[in-house]
């Protein structure tokens, strides 16, 4: 019987007590670690997804909503803007990149984004399997989308209206076909399905026609969604704003949901947002500003949760201290006996 053996004998003798104390402290530490990791990863993810995007141009509305919908793909868009906005921005000498995004549909809650290959280049994404889209109806899946949906090359899928899940109103007539799967990037691209802007328009043009045929007996007043594509009627039930590029097909005027802009020179930061915000239908939102605002809002909650975790840890620590102190008091006689038998003071008592 060694003193280590004696220690374990003590622990075994009060196994439940020991286990509960370890559990309390573990839970407290785990909570704190999870919160720290969560807040760190949240900040990292926001920074990574917005990296290189100096400005987002979209329809008038909340700038935070515009950033959330177009950069992080977690909110509904504020609306659509004319396609010529893209050309106007590209013609500006202070703009290095202007990447259009056309949103509106999803597949199993993963957003289908009409865009250009430059969007992949922006995040340094590469196609791991297959190839990029080259024609209508072709799509490339993000790594996480492919993993979670199990979709593989050549597989067809049907996009559903809206951005938050399958609403049961899919574009059955125009299925997409998977022609490529991206390698993991650790960015928002992993959770997106990319296709060409034209494919999004095409899908909705047909969808609109189909829905229009059912409109009368479906009892849905088209006026209610005036200026929107037929599928927007469906969208409007779940979204606060007409929020996809399908308006292009309906109105005959090609539109996009947002444009991600990278500056060529710092001068653009001074001039461009003000210029865009003067346009009646457009607004410019700066991801860095909106992300900071969002993090400060989220940060209050994180700070409160962190304080709570700290309190939990303190409680756990105090609980263990009380348990140890009680055990020490209970074992004073044992320790005195150990001293009598010849244990040296540091081995038998802390006093």
């Amino acid at each position: 019987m060694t003193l280590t053996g004696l220690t374990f004998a003590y622990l075994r003798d009060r196994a439940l007590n020991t286990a509960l104390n370890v559990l309390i402290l573990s839970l407290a530490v785990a909570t704190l670690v999870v919160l720290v990791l969560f807040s760190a990863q949240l900040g990292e993810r926001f920074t990574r997804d917005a990296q290189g995007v100096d400005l987002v141009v979209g329809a008038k509305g909340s700038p935070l909503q515009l950033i959330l919908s177009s950069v992080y793909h977690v909110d509904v868009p504020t609306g659509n803007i004319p396609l010529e906005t893209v050309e106007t921005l590209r013609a500006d000498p202070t703009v290095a990149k202007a990447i259009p995004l056309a949103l509106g549909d999803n597949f199993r809650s993963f957003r289908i984004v009409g865009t250009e290959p430059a969007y992949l280049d922006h995040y340094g994404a590469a196609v791991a399997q297959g190839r990029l889209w080259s024609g209508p109806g072709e799509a490339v899946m993000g790594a996480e989308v492919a993993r979670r949906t199990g979709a593989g090359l050549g597989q067809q899928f049907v996009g559903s209206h809206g951005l938050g899940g399958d609403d049961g109103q899919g574009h059955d007539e125009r299925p997409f076909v998977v022609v490529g799967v991206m390698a993991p990037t650790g960015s928002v691209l992993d959770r997106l399905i990319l296709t060409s802007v034209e494919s999004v328009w095409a899908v909705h043009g047909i969808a609109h026609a189909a829905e229009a045929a059912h409109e009368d007996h479906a009892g849905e007043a088209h006026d209610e969604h005036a200026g929107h594509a037929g599928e927007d009627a469906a969208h409007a039930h779940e979204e606060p704003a007409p929020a996809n590029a399908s308006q292009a097909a309906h109105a005959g005027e090609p539109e996009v949901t947002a444009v991600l802009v990278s500056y060529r020179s710092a001068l653009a930061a001074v001039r461009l947002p003000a210029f865009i915000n003067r346009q009646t239908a457009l607004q410019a939102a700066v991801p860095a500003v909106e992300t900071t605002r969002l993090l400060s809002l989220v940060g209050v909650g994180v700070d409160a949760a962190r304080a709570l975790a700290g309190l939990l840890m303190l409680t756990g620590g105090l609980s263990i201290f009380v348990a140890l102190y009680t055990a020490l008091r209970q074992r004073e006689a044992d320790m005195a006996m150990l001293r009598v038998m010849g244990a040296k003071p540091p081995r038998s008592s802390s006093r």
Partner: protein
Amino acid sequence: MLIEARNLTHRIADRQILDLPLLQVAAGDHHLLLGPSGSGKTTLINILAGLLTPTTGDVLIDGASMARISPTARDALRREKIGLVFQTLRLISSLTVRQNLALAQRLGPGPVHRELIDRLISQVGLAHRADARPRELSQGETQRAAIARALCTQPPILIADEPTSALDDVNAQAMVDLMLSAARTTGATLIIATHDRRIRGRFPQAIELKPTALAA
């Protein structure tokens, strides 16, 4: 003399607990320490073992002054020379009887001797309770286990405080036999504090303590 104490007194607050002008015990002697409750038997045992510092006087163990040596040296001296059986029967609560004996040997001066442990456990009649914890033992069984533990390091001096108080006649005699036998085998000095009349006739020598509760 193996043990020599001179002018020992001990006071707690204004109460005198012990007053012993002279105590001499030769190596190999077997003594009973007699006296009524409150006469200072337990106090004297604690002083002899170096667990308590007397108010006045000194104890020499094999020539070493307990008052002059350091606490560390006192611990070492106790570990090497003295085996103790306490009145309050302090076994380590989380360990089995066998583990209590093994720990005593581990902390003692000699090597761990498993055969001796098993033999002593058997001799005190606890072979069937060797793996029981103290809370699973009766008071008499605990007392016998404490005696076995004191003997398992084969100390030159064995001091026991009321070792038979919780034992029936048969077990009381058996335990005294065991301690005497062990002391004779190893040549150990044995001091047993008791007021148990059953064992008085077994010891040729006795130290008589008288009540000394005097107010200062």
